[in-house]
């Protein structure tokens, strides 16, 4: 099927996954309202959870169908390219895993399941549009759709002060960064007369509209995105928000929301501003370097495992920024692959933390993991796999992903960043392995009874086994997915003269 966007009906085809998912979010919401009127037995969230998963499955099928669709209208607001479709898999996977993890959680915490799931689905719609649009206005709308979903999800547990605090912080800082973004879009429009990425790219490449206005707009866009992906020094909100949010929401934010921001970041900068690469490259370079160094160093001193994972996710953002600084097709492919692996391992790790933390989320300190390994060997082995993968250890998907990023960096001759990346990885070994050493090398405190309160219902077990299995599989046979990522990065990369020298 070929779309030329001559008629508006073509947009319906091009947006099939998003439209399906939006409708489904409404269905879930209504179903939730109907259920709301009954007196709710605990564990009721499951039905709605499976219902939401069906919606994601439909969206996934529509996304698969889009592979057979071509378009020949570069001016359209929505594009159907490998990048978008690959990113969509990422978001659908992230949302699906989150919903599986949260199924029993919402029941246990007595959250309104209909709203919870539909918010996840709507935020996913926002992400999917972010990945697929070439229009800055639409991008902003999609970003807000996603962000508002994420704000509400953070504050979703009304009975918990920390959740409310996190939600408020996230909302304030998030809106602030959206403001930057919007202002940046306005300035770019003012300088180039367009909000369409390829047109901006063409105008900038032609040298027209090159002005302080354009550079200022680009800088504001950069700041806005840096907020969203929590790059140092714009990361301050992350630990509090991640700590306060309900656990599945944290997993969702750390994985999918960050992935979506990255996808949009990459598309905007590689499609609209490739000609200004020399201007934004040093900034991205420093952001990447600072993020890797600072986040890893702070993570070293975290005793709360949720905060540790929060800083670890900031650090992973730094690794991903290296790919953006490299700005080649290889690097973008590495970024896509890394995002996929990162989504899986991060949600897996958060799922374990959720299981261990218990009913009222009280067991969150490293100390609580003392002797955990010998009490719950299966869970602990899975957690060790996730940690090793986060650390980028051979045999896991995290290793292949890190190699891919490194290849991109080395290919673009970013020596200092490549070396910083591996040194930061060594630092990260320490805090990931520290969890392993609490689990396996310390004895459990005497008073805990065996296996008290560890609570892993079947959907969570599914997530754990599935993600660990996929990570190991990708760690041994990444082949097919590597090709997929490379195809997905088609056209997103610039051929550039290699820079020499250690600093940008």
């Amino acid at each position: 099927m070929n779309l030329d966007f001559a008629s508006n009906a073509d947009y319906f085809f091009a947006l099939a996954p998003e439209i399906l998912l939006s409708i489904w979010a409404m269905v879930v919401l209504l179903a939730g309202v109907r259920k709301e009127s009954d007196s709710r037995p605990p564990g009721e969230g499951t039905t709605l959870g499976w219902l939401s998963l069906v919606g994601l499955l439909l969206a996934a099928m529509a996304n698969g169908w889009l592979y057979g669709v071509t378009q020949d209208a570069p001016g359209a607001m929505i594009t159907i390219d490998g990048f978008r479709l690959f990113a969509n898999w990422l978001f659908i996977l992230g949302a699906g895993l989150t919903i599986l993890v949260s199924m029993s959680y919402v029941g246990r915490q007595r959250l309104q399941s209909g709203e919870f799931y539909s918010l996840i689905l709507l935020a996913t719609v926002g992400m999917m549009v972010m990945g697929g649009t070439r229009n800055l206005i639409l991008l902003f709308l999609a970003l807000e759709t996603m962000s508002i979903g994420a704000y509400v999800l953070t504050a979703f547990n009304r009975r918990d002060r920390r959740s409310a605090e996190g939600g408020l912080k996230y909302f304030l800082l998030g809106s602030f960064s959206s403001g930057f973004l919007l202002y940046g879009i306005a300035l770019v429009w003012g300088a180039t007369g367009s909000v369409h990425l390829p047109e901006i790219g063409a105008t900038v490449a032609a040298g027209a509209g090159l002005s302080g206005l354009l550079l200022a707009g680009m800088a504001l866009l950069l700041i806005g995105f840096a907020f969203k992906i929590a790059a140092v020094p714009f990361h301050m909100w992350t630990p509090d928000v991640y700590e306060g949010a309900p656990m599945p929401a944290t997993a969702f934010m750390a994985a999918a929301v960050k992935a979506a921001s990255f996808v949009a970041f990459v598309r905007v900068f590689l499609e609209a501003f490739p000609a200004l690469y020399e201007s934004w490259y040093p900034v991205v370079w420093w952001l990447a370097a600072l993020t890797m160094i600072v986040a890893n160093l702070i993570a070293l001193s975290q005793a709360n495992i949720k905060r540790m994972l929060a800083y670890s996710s900031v650090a992973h953002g730094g690794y991903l920024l290296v790919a953006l600084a490299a700005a080649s097709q290889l690097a973008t492919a590495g970024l896509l692959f890394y995002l996929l692996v990162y989504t899986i391992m991060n949600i897996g790790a958060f799922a374990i933390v959720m299981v261990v933390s218990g009913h009222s989320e009280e067991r969150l300190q490293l100390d609580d993991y003392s002797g955990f390994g010998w009490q719950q060997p299966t869970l602990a082995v899975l957690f060790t796999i996730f940690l090793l993968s986060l650390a980028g250890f051979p045999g896991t998907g995290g290793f292949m992903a890190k190699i891919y990023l490194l290849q991109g960096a080395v290919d673009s001759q970013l020596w200092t960043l490549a070396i910083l990346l591996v040194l930061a990885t060594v630092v990260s070994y320490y805090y990931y392995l520290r969890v392993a050493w609490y689990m396996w090398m310390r004895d459990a405190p005497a008073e805990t009874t065996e296996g008290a309160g560890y609570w892993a219902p079947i959907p969570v077990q599914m997530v754990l086994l599935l993600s660990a299995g996929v990570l190991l599989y990708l760690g041994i046979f990444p082949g097919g997915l590597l090709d997929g990522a490379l195809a997905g990065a088609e056209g997103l990369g610039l051929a550039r003269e290699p820079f020499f020298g250690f600093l940008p």
Partner: protein
Amino acid sequence: MTALLQAIGYEAWALHALIWLPLVGLAAVLLSSEERARQIAFGWTSALFVLSLGLWWSFDPGGELFQLTSRTDWISAWGVSYALGVDGISLFMILLTTLTMPLAILGAFRYIRERQRAFYALMLLLQTGIIGVFASMDLFLFYVFFELTLVPMYFIIGVWGGERRVYAAIKFFLYTAVGSLLMLVAILYVYMQARMAAGGAGSFFYLDLLGTSLTLGEQLWLLAAFALAFAIKVPIFPLHTWLPDAHVEAPTPGSVVLAAVLLKMGTYGFLRFVLPFFPDAAIHPTVVMVMLTLGVIGIVYAAWVAAVQPDAKKLVAYTSVAHMGFVVLGIFALTVNGIQGGLFVMISHGISTGALFLLLGMLYERRHTREIEAFGGLAKVAPLMATAFVITALASIGLPGTSGFIGEFLALLGTFERYPVIAFIGATGVIFAAYYMLPMVQRILFNQLEREENRTLPDLTPREIAVLGPLLALMIILGVFPTPVLERMEPGVRAIVEYVDEGARGGALATLKREHETGTAELVQEPRTPRVEQAELGRTSHHGERYSPAPSWTPSPEMAANRPPWPGPVNLPVTTVFTHGDQG
């Protein structure tokens, strides 16, 4: 024997089996009961040792440089292949590993009392990693296995170790990781350069990366990154500080494997990758002098430090640093004798230090202390143990007639051919070895039997005799008949020397590289190329024989009889490879 092995197709599956069968054993151990785990692990590793013995006969000292080769695409997007092969260098490392494992496990029977299943499972995982390191012919594969050995060792030290086990485990892990991750960047650099030179298709295959043209400056940087990784592993003098901690805190079987095999991954890396990949940098006078000096400092310094250790295990740990100093000397002297000596020290050190750690473990099981002062006069109450101890100590010092002598003598001889002063200083290390080892032997075994608790110290049990017996026998046998080992090593060593020395890029390694580039490249390396084209082309090997690869290749009888050269179907007469006997 050779015929029998050929009949059962040993060459085709031996290396795969040695790498992957430990994982089957791992599954069996995990599924068994806590009490049976050690028996299964011991039985399984022993069976693997017997299996690996076939390598001895299957490896033809006069044959191709790399044998038992195989290569399959693994991650085709990056040109990573699952390529295996052994030469005279890795052959003995593999045999050393398969020998050490069952003995270490047998020696652990009384030491490891808790969480036995997990322990033996990790040991088997470790074996997979180590064999993989020595058998890999693909740099990526090598790196994966190299790193893979870290995780089981981390847990072995950290869970079953002594007082400061967590500190030692994390120190071991981080030290090694820093080096190997920087090496990873260097690996990727070489890969990118080779890919650029090849015009697009990248590959991590050993022979593809070999001879990548790099400027001297690049080579020096890359050598620094590789050498850092391997020098930490060896360990070479200023980077050795993780070793005493790891050795002392590790449980006995962990120390044995660490000393006997894991350290050798470092020196092996120097021989296999550092020298041939960066030949100009490796013969750069400054680099050579730095490495030799560090080697000599390691020998002398470690000997002095060892001499004052009150803890017997720490003393033995420092002797490892000293012994590995000899290996470094031998390698960087870049003479056939030197490298062969270095390799022989690696084997001999694996056997004798492994045995020393086992003996100290046995003492510890009896007395729960490793302080030298706590013993004395044991020769009277435990004569068998004392005999074993003395023989092992003498082999470790390098007394003529033991394996230690051959290695150190050859290494020093090889060094003397080029750097007499260095060799002279290094030779004093042999004297210092006597200075630290003999007093320890005297204070533990002889002197007065003063302490009451030592009077009832039981002698070796039959199980312990079974552990030590093979090692003691090997110390003597290798000391008296080193030739069968040396003749198998020689082609591999000579190939490296001839390739690297004076930037000659000659010898068997260069021949192999040429063959790889001209002859077999299309058939094996790029399966996507249409076969018809190759059939039409026909090729002339540099030996002048014309052959036409058939569209689907099946071995002809005479091809099957000869072993195929690397890694595929070209059937070349083996005439140029150096055989034993043309030495000098």
